[in-house]
C-alpha cells in the first residue's frame, strides 16, 4: 500500500484516501473539431506506459478532494515527488515547455 504525500494537505497519507487518475500533463485540445479522427483518438486513448518514471495524476478523494501530480517509478513504486496541477515536475522533466496548464 502506497504512502502518498498530498501537496495540498502537506501530509503523507495512506493510499486508501486517494484514487488514481491516469497520466498527467495531458492537455485537452483547444479546438477538438479541427482534429482528425486519428489525432483525437491519440488524445482519447493513447497513454504512455513506461517502465520507470511516470508523471501521473492522483486525487485526494477522501481528503482535500484536490487533484495533484506525482512522479512515480512504475518498477519500484517509489514516488519521487508530488506537485500541484499546473506546475511542472522537477524530476524527469517534460520534454518541451508548452502552454500546458495541466
Amino acid at each position, binding site marked *: 500500500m*502506497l504512502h502518498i504525500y498530498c501537496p495540498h494537505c502537506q501530509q503523507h497519507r495512506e493510499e486508501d484516501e486517494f484514487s488514481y487518475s491516469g497520466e498527467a500533463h495531458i492537455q485537452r485540445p483547444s479546438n477538438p473539431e479541427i482534429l482528425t479522427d486519428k489525432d483525437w483518438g491519440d488524445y482519447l486513448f493513447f497513454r504512455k506506459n513506461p517502465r520507470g518514471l511516470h508523471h501521473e495524476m492522483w486525487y485526494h478523494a477522501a481528503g482535500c478532494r484536490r487533484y495533484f501530480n506525482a512522479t512515480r517509478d512504475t518498477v519500484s513504486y517509489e514516488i519521487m515527488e508530488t506537485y500541484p496541477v499546473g506546475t511542472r515536475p522537477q524530476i524527469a522533466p517534460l520534454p518541451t515547455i508548452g502552454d500546458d496548464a495541466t
Partner: protein
Amino acid sequence: MTTADQVNRLESGGRIHREKPLSFTFDGKKMIGYEGDTLASALLANGVSVVARSFKYSRPRGIVGHGAEEPNAIIQLGEGNATVPNLRATQVELYEGLQATAVSGWPNVEFDLMGLIGIFGRLMPPGFYYKTFMRPQRLWMTYEHIIRKAAGLGKAPTEADPDSYDKLNQHCDVLVVGAGPAGLAAALTAARTGARVIIADEQQGFGGSLLASVLSINAQPAAGWVADTIDELKSFDSVQLLPRSTVFGYYDHNFLAILERRSDHVGLTAITGSRQRLHRVRAKQVVLATGAIERPLVFAHNDVPGVMLASSVSTYIQRYAVIPGRTLLLSTTNDGAYQTAIDWHQAGRHVAAIVDSRPQVNGPLIETAKQLGIHVISGHAVIEALGKKRVTGAIIAPINSTGAALTGTPKTLSCDLIASSGGWSPAIHLSSHTGAKPYWDDKKIAFLPGNSRQQEQSAGSANGCWTLQGCLQEGIEVGAAAAQKAGFSPAVDQPVDFHCNEPLQQSPHALFLVPHPKSTSRAPSQFVDLQLDVTAAAIELAAREGYESVEHAKRYTAMGFGTDQGKLGNINGIAILANALGQTISETGTTMFRPAYTPTTFGAIAGRDIGALFDPERYTAMHRWHQEHGATWENVGQWKRPWYFPQQSEHMHEAVNRECLAVRNSVGILDASTLGKIDIQGPDAAEFITRIYTNSYLKLAIGKCRYGVMLKEDGMIFDDGVTACLAENHYLMFTTTGGAAGVLAWLELWQQTEWPDLQVYFTSVTDHWATATVTGPNARKVIAKVCDDIDLSNDNFAFMDWRDGTVAEIKARLFRISFTGELSYEVNVPAHYGRFIWEKLLEAGKEFDITPYGTETMHVLRAEKGFIIVGQDTDGSVTPHDMNMSWVIAKNKTFSFLGKRSLERSDSLRDQRKQLVGLKTREPQQVLPEGAQIVNDQNQLLPMAMQGHVTSSYYSANLGHSIALAVVKGGLNRLGETVYCPLADGRILAAEIVSSVFYDPEGARQHV
C-alpha cells in the same frame, strides 16, 4: 496414557514445564505432553514417527524441522466451526485438550489406501501442473478436485467462525523482524536512542536460535542474555514487543503486515477478546533479522520418517528435552552440525557416526566429538536411507572433494535417525517481497538479500552471517543505522563488544544432491521438495525437456508450490537445475518469494469488516417507515431502497402490478432521496455545466429545470439527470443514485485541471435533502392539501419548473419533473423532516388511495415511457444517438462540450451500431429475461450472429403485456421486424422490434 509414554522425553532439561502435563490427541490417539511443547515436540516425545502421507506418492512422512520450514507435519486443528486447516505441527503450541489430525492419508497416515493402490504418482508425472494448465480450464478443475480429495490439504470450516479478529494500524521508527541474537541486539540499540520500536517474532518466546544454544554471551548463558535484553526492552515505553507474531508480508513504502496470534496457544477459540490481530505497520526503517533455515542434503529415500535437519534435532533436545530416536547418524558438510551429535551423545544416546563430506576435517568441534568417542568418517556422505515407515539404517559411500562423484564401495550403518546438514539458507523471503533480487554468494554457499528497494537492512544469519558474535555485532550496527536514518542520534551507553565462546569453524562444503551409484533418473527417489514430492530426477527431466529458466522449471515440477513455498527444498532444487544445465547457481538464479511468508487466516485479514460491517449501508430519512410497512429492499450502491411494498400475502408481481396501476390511475409516492444532488455555485457555473452536459444551461431561467446527459470524452453516456437553476449563479444538479460520487469527482477533475479559470464551486448535498415524489393524475390534488403558498396551476407551475414553498409548514422545494410520465411533484425538504413530510403526504393522499411504491415499480413505469436508466440500458459503450436521444444534444454550443468531438468519430457514425428499441414478445404474457441475447435467424447454426441484447424487461400491468428495452444493431431502422432470443433453457422467444416508448408517446400526461 501417562507421562511415561513419552519414550523420547529426556529426564531433565528443556524449556518445558514438567509440572504442567497436557493431554492431547493426534488422529484420535491420546497422548501427553508438557506446557512449553509444540505439537511436533510432543509427538516426537511420544515416539510418533509417521505424521503424514506424501502428496503424490502417498509415502509415509515424519517431522523434519522445528519451525516454519516444516514441509510434512501439516495438520488440521480441532473440528467444527473453529477448525483450522494447514497448520505446521512445529508451530502449534500445545494446550490442554488439543485435537489434531493429519490432513493427508486415507483412512489414516499409518495405513494409507491411496499408497496401497499406488496409482496416484503415475497419474501425476512431472510437468503435470504445467501441462494441465495448458489444457482447457475445466479439465484442471477436475484434477484439482481429485488432488484435493486424495492428497488432502485440510478442510475449511463450513460454519461461521466463532472468533473475532482485530486490525491495528501502527506507525514506528524501526520495525525489527525476528527476535534472535541479531534482532534483539538491533531492537535494543534502536530503543536506546529513543526511537519507537516494534519487534516481532513468530515464536512464543523471544531468543530465536539462542533458546536452544549451548553458547554463552559475555560469560553468561545465552538464555540469560536473552532474558536481560527482553527486560530492558520492556522498560521502554516506546518499544512494543510482539511474540507469536509473524511478519508475513513486506509491501510498498515500508508497509508490513503482522499476524499476532493472541489465543491460539490456549485453545481453538478465544475465551475473551479477539483471537488474532492483524497489525498494519508503516515503518520508517525495517531491520530484517529473520534468521536462516538449515538446508538438508538430498539423497536417496531422504524422505523416510527419521530423516531430520541437524539443527532441528538439537532444538528438540535442548529446548524441549526430546530426543527423537535411539541411534543417530549425522551427515554433514560443515562443522556446526557436529553440535547435534555432541548434544545427542550427551543426552545419553548412541551416535552411530558422523559422516562428513569434506576430505579432511579438524577443528574444535570435531575434536570435541572425537574426544567423546564419536566415530567421525570424513570424505563420506549418506547416499541412501533404509527403512519404510522409519529409518532402519543408512548407506554411506566415499565421495570426491567436489561432491560430484562417489569414489568407493558403499557400506551400510544401522541407525534410526539420520540428521543432515548441507549448510544454511538465509530467510530472505521478506527482503524478496520488496522486489530486491537475491544474489548467490559462493563463499557463504547461500542466496543473500539483494540491494534494498526500500528502507530496510538485513542483519545476522538472514544476511549470511554464521557466527553468534557476528550476528550480535551486525544487529547493533544495523539497529543503530536504522535509528539514525529515522532521525535519532546514537545513545551514549551502547554495548560495544560481545564475547561468545563459540568454536572456530572450517569452511563448509558446497554439497546439495549426494550422488548415488545409479544415475539420478534410476536411483531411488531423491526428494527435493518433500511437500509436493518433487525429486531430483524430476528437475533434471525439466531441464532435459527445455524448461531452463528457474521460473519455468519451478512451474514444470511444482517445486516450491506448496504451503511451505519450498523453504527447505528450493536452494537444493536450483543447485540441481544449475548442475543439469551446466551453469553456476548464480547464473541460474532464484525464484522470487511472495507474501505470505506462512499461511495467514482469512479471519485476521477480514477483521471486523464482516457481516453488517462489511460495507456501510446508507438509509434515507424515511427508512424506518419503509421497514415498518414491510418494504423489501434493493441495494443501490450502498443505499437500501424499498423495492416494493407487498401487502398481506402478495407476491412480488402482484405487488408491483398494484403499485403500477395505482400511479397511472390515481397517485403514488416514492422515496427518491437517494438521487445524487450537487450544489453548484459561482459566476461561471452555467458555463461550466454547459461544457459538461450535451445541452446548454446558459439561458436556463431561475425557477426552471433541464434534463441533461453527461458524456465521457469518448462520447459515451456516463450519467444523466435534471439540473435546476436555483438563483443567479446557483444550480442544483441531480445525478443517478449510483453515479453521485463519480460525477462529483468528474466535475472536480475538469474544474481543477483544464478549466481552473472558471469560478465554480461544488458541494455534495445528497444527504441534506429528503425527497418524496408524488406522481399520478391526482398528484396536484394531494399537494394542494398540504401546500397553500404555491400556485399549483399548470400555467404558473408547469412541467420542468421548480418552486420554493411550504409543505405541511416545512420549507420545501418542489420540482415538477417526472420519471413516470405522469403529473409529478418531487418534494424536497431538509433531511430531518423526511419522515414527517412523507407521513403528511400519505395522510393528504389518503382519499386518493395514495400508494407507496418502490424501485421495481419505478423501473416498470419509466420503461413504459422508454426512459433509460444509465448503467442498465447503457453500459459505457453507447452514445445519445444510440439511445435515440439525439434531441438532447445542442447543435450550436460555442464550446465543444465533453464528448462532442467523439460523436463525429467514424465509429460513432457507423449505421450498424446497437440502438435502443422496444421489444414486444409474440406471446404477450412472456417476459424476456434481461440480458437475453438477440439473433435474427433462430435456425442459424452455432455460433449464432448476435444482434444485441435485452437491457430492461418487465410485465406492464397498465398495458396488459410484457415490455422490453433492448439494444439491437441498426435497430432504429428495423421497427416491425421480428427477432429471436435463444435462452439458456433451450426455448427461443420471438419478439417484434417496436418503438421504445410504449405508453403515452406524445407525453401528454406529464404536462397536465
